[in-house]
C-alpha cells in the first residue's frame, strides 16, 4: 500500500474516532436530567464514601425488590478524593455519577453553580421530614438540590469505670463548667496519666463549631455577612479557652492511631463527639477492654444548666448531578435510600449513619437498648433537643471560611490564646478574604 494511501486511511480513521468522541460529548445534556425512556437497561452509578457505600450495597436487594428494572452500581470513593473528582466531572459536563454523596456543608457551593439537578418538584413535600437546620442547608435560592442522609448530633462517650475510679458522676455533669471541673478532678487524681478528652490544636474549629451552635452563634448572618464577632461566638470561644486552659485535654487528633489505641486503655476518660463516633469506638474496642472500661454515653454539657444539650457536627446528603441521563431512576434510588424508614434504620443499625429523616426517629427500633453501652437507649439520647439545634447559615464559600477559621483557631491555641480581640480581627480578615462584609458589633 502506498504511503500516501496509508496516511489517508489512518487520518480518516482518526477523524471518525474524533467525531464520535465529540458527538458523544455534545450529546450530554448539561441542565435538567431526563428519563431513560426507550433506552437499554444501563446501571445508574452512585458515588459514596467507604462506609456509606458499604451500607448502600447491603440494602440493594431490598431496592431491587421494589425497583427490579433499575440496576445500580455503587462506587466507593474516599471522601478526600471525591470532592476533586466530582468537581472535575461537573466542570467537564461529563463523567459525573447519577447520584453522589457530598458533605452537607458543601451543598451551597455546588448548588450555586447550577450543576446539580433541581429536586424541588419531587422533594419539597419531604421538607417537614427533616430537621429544619438540615433541610435549609439543602435549599438554595428557594430550590431543593439535595436530600439529607445522616447527621451528627453530639454527646460524650465516656468510660464509666474511669469516671467511677476518680469519683466523677456523669449524671451530675450538666454544663461545660461542671465538665471542666470533672476533668480537673480526673487529671489531678491520676497525676496526669488520664486526660479528660482529646482536643488537638489542629482541630479546634470542630469544637468551636459545636459550641457555637449551642451558644446560638453564626459564622455568617442571614445576609451573608461575616458574623463571627458576635457576643454568642464570644461565649463559645470563652468555653473553648477554658477547656484548653484547664489543661485537661490530650493534644491528639480525633482520628488517628493514638486515639484508637486509647479506646482500650484509661489514657483518655471521654470523647466529645458526634453519634457516629460510637460505632467507631465499638469497632476499635476489644470486647474484654470494653467490659472492663464500661463504656457509656451522656448528653452534651450545656452552656449553662438548663441550656441546649445537643449540637451537630457534619452530615451528608445525596445529590443528583444535572448532567445525568437517568434522572427518574436516580431520584427513585435517592428517595428509597433516604426517605424511607426501613432504609434509614438499616443504614443506622449496621453502619452507624444517624438518620436525618425524622420519621425514622419515631420508630420503635430507636428505643432498643444498646448492650455495648450498658443497655443505655443511645439512639433516643441523641434525638433529644435535635430540632432545637439552630441552623448554621451556609454560604457558597463555606468551606473556604471553615478552613480559614480552623487555621486561625489553631494558631490562637498554639500561641497561648493571647490574641486580644481575636474574633473581631478574625471577622475583618475573613470578610476581606471572602470579599464579604463583616457585621458591626
Amino acid at each position, binding site marked *: 500500500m502506498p504511503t500516501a494511501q496509508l496516511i489517508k486511511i489512518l487520518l480518516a480513521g482518526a477523524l471518525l474516532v474524533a467525531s464520535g468522541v465529540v458527538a458523544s460529548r455534545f450529546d450530554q445534556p448539561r441542565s435538567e436530567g431526563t428519563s431513560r425512556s426507550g433506552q437499554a437497561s444501563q446501571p445508574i452509578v452512585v458515588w459514596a464514601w467507604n462506609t456509606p457505600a458499604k451500607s448502600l450495597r447491603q440494602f440493594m436487594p431490598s431496592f431491587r425488590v421494589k425497583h427490579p428494572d433499575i440496576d445500580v452500581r455503587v462506587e466507593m470513593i474516599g471522601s478526600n478524593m471525591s470532592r*476533586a473528582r466530582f468537581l472535575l466531572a461537573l466542570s467537564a459536563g461529563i463523567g459525573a455519577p447519577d447520584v453522589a454523596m457530598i458533605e452537607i456543608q458543601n451543598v451551597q457551593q455546588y448548588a450555586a453553580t447550577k450543576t446539580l439537578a433541581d429536586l424541588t418538584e419531587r422533594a419539597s413535600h419531604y421538607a417537614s421530614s427533616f430537621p429544619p437546620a438540615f433541610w435549609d442547608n439543602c435549599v438554595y435560592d428557594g430550590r431543593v438540590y439535595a436530600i439529607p442522609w445522616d447527621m451528627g448530633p453530639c454527646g460524650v462517650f465516656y468510660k464509666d469505670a474511669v469516671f467511677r475510679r476518680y469519683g466523677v458522676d456523669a449524671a451530675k455533669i450538666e454544663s461545660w463548667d461542671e465538665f471542666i471541673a470533672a476533668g480537673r478532678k480526673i487529671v489531678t487524681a491520676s497525676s496526669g496519666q488520664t486526660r479528660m478528652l482529646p482536643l488537638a490544636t489542629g482541630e479546634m474549629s470542630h469544637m468551636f463549631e459545636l459550641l457555637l451552635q449551642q451558644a446560638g452563634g453564626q459564622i455568617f448572618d442571614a445576609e451573608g455577612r461575616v458574623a463571627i464577632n458576635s457576643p454568642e461566638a464570644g461565649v463559645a470561644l470563652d468555653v473553648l479557652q477554658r477547656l484548653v486552659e484547664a489543661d485537661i485535654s490530650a493534644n491528639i487528633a480525633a482520628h488517628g492511631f493514638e486515639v484508637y489505641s486509647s479506646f482500650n486503655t484509661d489514657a483518655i476518660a471521654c470523647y466529645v463527639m458526634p453519634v457516629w463516633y460510637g460505632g467507631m469506638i465499638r469497632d476499635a474496642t476489644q470486647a474484654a477492654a470494653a467490659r472492663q472500661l464500661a463504656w457509656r454515653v451522656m448528653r452534651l454539657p450545656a452552656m449553662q444548666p438548663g441550656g441546649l444539650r445537643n449540637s451537630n457536627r457534619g452530615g451528608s446528603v445525596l445529590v443528583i448531578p444535572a448532567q445525568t441521563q437517568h434522572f427518574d431512576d436516580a431520584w427513585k434510588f435517592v428517595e428509597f435510600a433516604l426517605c424511607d424508614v426501613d432504609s434509614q434504620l438499616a443504614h443506622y443499625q449496621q453502619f452507624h449513619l444517624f438518620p436525618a429523616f425524622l420519621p425514622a426517629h419515631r420508630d420503635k427500633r430507636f428505643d432498643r437498648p444498646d448492650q455495648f453501652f450498658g443497655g443505655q437507649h443511645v439512639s433516643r439520647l441523641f434525638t433529644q433537643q435535635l430540632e432545637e439545634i439552630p441552623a448554621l447559615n451556609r454560604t457558597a464559600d463555606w468551606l473556604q471560611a471553615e478552613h480559614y477559621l480552623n487555621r486561625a483557631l489553631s494558631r490562637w491555641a498554639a500561641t497561648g490564646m493571647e490574641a486580644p480581640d481575636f474574633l473581631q480581627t478574625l471577622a475583618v480578615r475573613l470578610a476581606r478574604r471572602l470579599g464579604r462584609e463583616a457585621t458591626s458589633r
Partner: protein
Amino acid sequence: MRARRNWADVRRHAHFYLFIAPFFLLFAVFGMYPVLFSFFLSFTKWNGLTERRWIGLANFAAMLHDEIFWTSLWNTAVLGVLTIPAMLVLGFLFALGLNAGWLRAKGYLRTAFFLPCITPMVAIAIVFLLVYSPERGILNWLLRSAGLGPLDWLNSVSWSKPSLAMVSLWRWTGYTAVLMLAGLQGIPKDYYEAARLDGAGGFARMWHITLPLMRPMFIYCSISALLGTVFMFDEVIVLTEGGPGASSLNFGLYLFNTSFVDFRFGYASAVAYTMAAFVFLLSLVIVRRRRGDENW
C-alpha cells in the same frame, strides 16, 4: 521553491512522522494544552463550574495583598533553607561512604538508603506521628529523660516547620546520596591515580578533583530539591495540614487548597505561573553561573 522541496521531503518520509506522532499528540493534549489553558485561566475568575470571566491582571494584583500566599512563600523558603543544604551535605557524605572501597554489604546499604523515598507517605506518617507524639512520642521521651521539657512538635508554631524539615530530610537524603554516588562513580579513576603520583593527599584530591567534578551533580540535586521543596505536598498534608495556623503551610499545599478547597482556579493558575516563573529564573541563574564558571 525551497519550501515546496521541503514539503515534498516531509511527504516522502511521512511514515517516520507517523511513528513519532503518538508522542506529540499525547504531549499536545496532556502537556501543552493544560499549560496553555492554565495560562489563559490566570487572567480569569473561574470556580471550575460557572462561566469564566476575563479580569486581566487582577489575579496577579490580588497576590500582592494575599497574606496567606506570602506566608506560604516564607514557609517554603524556611523549609528550603532547613532541608536543601543539609540534604546536599549529608547526601554527599553518605555517597562517599557508600563509594568507599572498604565498605562491606554495599548493595544492602544502598537499598536501605534508597528505601525512604519509595516508601508510601502514609506509612511514613504513621511512624513520624508516633515519633512526634506530644503524649507518647520517642522524641519527647528522650527530652524528658534528659531533663528537658516536652515539645509540641507538630502543633507548635515554632516547631512545625523544623518537624516537617526533619521528615523531608529523612525521606530524600538517601535519594540524593544515590544520585551523588552515581556522580562519584562517573569520575575517572585515572585522575586520582595521577594526583596520587603527584603527591596529592586525601584532602587535596577531594578539594581539587572530587568537588569540582561533582559540581554538575550538586547543581542538579539543588534544583531537584528546590522544586521538591516548593511543590512538597504529601508530607505537609499528612503531618500538619499546614498548621497550626498557617505556620507550616507551604506553597504546594497552598496551591492545592486554593484550587480544590476554595475552587479559585483562575487565581490558583496566576499563583502557579508566578511561582513557575520564579523557579525558572532561579534555576536559570544557577545554570548560568555554572556555565560562567566553565568559561572562566
